[in-house]
């Protein structure tokens, strides 16, 4: 091949790189390894994680240990879905495009909003992207968010906002839900958007419609971040006056994967269609009149519009969105509702059961779907360690994000956590609290 090129060595092909900029030494990385050794090495690392197969986990806080049906893996691992790129050539990408179209349909159904994109990276950055849209759409720069919105989402809003100079005003919770009066107070005619979360971070179901009225009044967009699983039974944001609904898609068909990859969804009213971020599949016909799909409204996108694009996103999370779609199809119309009902009932049971444990107090009494908060009467980190030693991941400590709930604990359920698991949690947690009651947090333990 060198001969065909007309060079004497491969080295020569790198001649354009100035001598002084050549590395001139091997990379300080170990030499390549055979597959079997790489497997062993990665297995050894994996073995040092307390994963949800190894402990009974009640961790949630935005990502949930749902059962991912086997067909999700079977379908997403097909080369035909796994290895192509973005469907730039629609004639040979109908599989991916149709899956996107189906996904958009499903997300539109879940959120009650007419248009959906084909997914963004994940939840919090989707919230931030919604903020970006709101600023573009309203020409205003103030954002108002309930403290019920996921802390990661609020942080992302601040990070993203640093670019275009936005203010984020946070509104407190009372009795677990957004303080309606404070929210109304915070919204003014400079407000580009109001952010709520459904259910909120503490698991409470918000009255979106009531809360959103103030946003409407001032011409601010109402943006609702939601748990897609909860939308099986909750009134969809689109029916509560939301302009945009976004969220973390992980609970739909995606593994925990220590936080990613998953997908973010982004749905909106018709009005915002041409401002949407990300890919959108649209239906059309080919020259022979056959139905087909293309990436549509590409003039929104960076590869066409460059600095005038509505967002910079390019590679997104198509495969994860497909996983979500397959999961939804597997659940089916009825099964999806049944899942929501199951969770609501088990969660109600769990809250009651835990609330009855000595030293454990329910943090709020607002309605919940699949997650609820308690306060334990002992240093929560130590309590969590005790539970972990018994093979139980008891939940997410609220202290870092909500200093007002120093010993707060967020407890999440999925269909994988049975009543027996809940009862065991109550016992183990109760014993740990009883033991540690009155104990001081040893210094340096709280992280």
């Amino acid at each position, binding site marked *: 091949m060198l001969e065909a090129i007309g060079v004497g060595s491969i080295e020569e092909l790198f001649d354009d790189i100035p001598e002084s900029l050549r590395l001139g030494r091997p990379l300080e990385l170990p030499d390549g390894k055979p597959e079997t050794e790489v497997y062993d090495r990665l297995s050894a690392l994996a073995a040092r994680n307390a994963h949800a197969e190894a402990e009974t986990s009640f961790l949630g806080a935005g990502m949930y240990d749902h059962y991912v049906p086997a067909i999700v893996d079977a379908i997403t691992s097909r080369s035909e879905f796994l290895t192509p790129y973005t469907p730039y050539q629609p004639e040979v990408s109908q599989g991916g495009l149709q899956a996107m179209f189906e996904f958009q349909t499903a997300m539109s159904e879940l959120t009650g909003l007419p248009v959906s994109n084909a997914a963004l990276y994940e939840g919090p950055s989707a919230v931030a992207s919604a903020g970006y849209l709101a600023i573009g759409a309203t020409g205003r720069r103030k954002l108002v968010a309930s403290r019920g919105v996921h802390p990661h989402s609020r942080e992302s809003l601040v990070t993203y906002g640093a670019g275009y100079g936005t203010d984020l005003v946070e509104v407190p919770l009372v009795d677990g839900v957004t303080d309606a009066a404070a929210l109304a107070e915070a919204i003014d005619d400079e407000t580009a958007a109001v952010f709520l979360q459904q259910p909120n971070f503490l698991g409470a179901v918000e009255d979106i419609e009531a809360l959103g009225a103030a946003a409407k009044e001032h011409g601010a967009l109402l943006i609702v971040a939601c748990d897609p699983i909860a939308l099986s039974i909750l009134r*969809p944001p689109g029916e509560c006056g939301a302009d945009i609904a976004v969220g973390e898609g992980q609970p739909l068909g995606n593994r925990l994967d220590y936080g990613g990859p998953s997908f973010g969804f982004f749905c909106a009213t018709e009005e915002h269609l041409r401002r949407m971020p990300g890919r959108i599949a649209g239906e059309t016909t080919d020259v022979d009149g056959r139905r087909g799909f293309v990436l549509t409204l590409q003039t929104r996108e960076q590869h066409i519009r460059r600095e005038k694009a509505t967002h910079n*996103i390019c590679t997104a999370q198509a495969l994860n969105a497909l996983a979500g779609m397959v999961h939804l199809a597997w659940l089916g119309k009825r099964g999806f509702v049944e899942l929501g009902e199951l969770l609501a009932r088990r969660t109600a049971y769990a809250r009651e059961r835990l609330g009855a444990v000595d030293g454990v107090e329910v943090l709020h009494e607002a309605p919940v779907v699949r997650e609820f908060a308690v306060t334990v009467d002992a240093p929560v980190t130590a309590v969590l360690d005790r539970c972990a030693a018994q093979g139980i991941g008891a939940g997410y400590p609220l202290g870092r994000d909500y200093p007002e709930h120093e010993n707060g604990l967020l407890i999440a359920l999925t269909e994988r956590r049975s009543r027996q698991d809940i009862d065991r949690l109550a016992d183990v947690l109760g014993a740990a609290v009883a033991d540690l009651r009155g104990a001081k947090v040893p210094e340096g333990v709280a992280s």
Partner: protein
Amino acid sequence: MPDAGVPETPLEELIPKNLLRERPADLPEVSEPEIVRHYNRISRRNFDLDTGFYPLGSCTMKHNPRLNERVAALPGHARLHPAQEPKRAQGALELMWLLQRSLAEICGLPHVSLQPSAGSHGELAGLLLTRAYHADRGEERTKVLTPDTAHGTNPATVTMAGYEVVKLASNERGGIDLDDLRAKADDDTACLMLTNPNTLGLFDENIAEIARIVHDAGGTLYYDGANLNAIMGHSRPGDMGFDIVHVNLHKSFSQPHGGGGPGAGPIACSDRIEPYLPRPQVVRRDAQNGGEPSFDLDYDRPKSIGRLRGFQGNFGVFVRSYAYILSLGGDGLQEASETAVLNANYLLARMRGGEAGRYTPVAFDRRCMHEFVLSGAPAKRELGVKTLDIAKRLLDHGMHPPTVYFPLLVDEALMVEPTETETRETLDAFAEAIDAILEEAAEDPGIAQGAPYTTPVRRLDEVAANRNPVVRQPL
């Protein structure tokens, strides 16, 4: 659905009726075998890398080892909750730390954050870092320079980060026009975003001088790592003077492209940028008593730009890419780049002759790095066959077309990136296909103009799709 195992309380007693859905979401109601058949069938309407040649320029469609899928699926990775206490997620944190160290070595920059979810997310991080860096110095700069060859995400990111785009011209060798740069780099310049080798597949030999100019003006230099596959183990962005680099793990580091993601866009940076890196950061803590070191998430970063997303990033992608780095090793990565460059130059050499040489000549007549850009202008002019037509006709040859109409600088561009995992036979077959298409077009341009013919659907009406968008199945 499992039995609830708890009282079957009516839903309305748990949640007020006005907060409940009135009608269930209209999802499909089909059996598992039907779902499988549906997706298997539509999957076959995709072209994929595991089945054929996919020389999509700028996208590095290299082979995706299945080992990586296997290790990513280990329950210790796949079922690890992102909020697991760091002390109970030591394996994951160590893996991330090791990947950070590996990328730091490859990029020649000491610090890495794995948080960004793709290249464009890394770019946004890069400009927010630049802003924080300048702000910390009491400076407010408003402009970001990007060459006219830049990928669309660069200018789009500039706008999202609240900056203004200043375009730089290219010189006759496809590199940055230094005079133009000197003229535009001033104390309002926040950053220059650059790909090197650039999107023409050409290495800008003036990079040291470029860095000097930008740094002298007080700006930062951002490296768009989409083309890192050309230079691994040969040259490092940090050594070239770049302050911030993003790496597309779905390009150089073999994460499968998934039909448009997932990917990941870790960033590497220099010491002076480090204080501003996103939060949390994965750190190693050495044991006081000589024991094993431990790994942690460091939130205590007061100057950090904050979070760009939830949790710790696309960890599953990190597993795959770290497995890839372990598999190839330092030696293998270097060899991968060599073979990528060899393959591109071989294919380019082949295409300098024949019909391709005549109708789709290389845009800049130099040797290339890992990819090259042809101009279909002569084909359009002389044969009446546009780059789009050539691309569509390639589909009938069972190959995925190159990237087309990018970079914008090149008229009727065809951007070809074969990658290191293709065989010479495949490269030859591609060159022959292009020749055959052009030969055929010389006889009858209508064939290419009407192509493709053998695909699941033929050319689709994109105009109609835009004009009257149907973006979901009507109820």
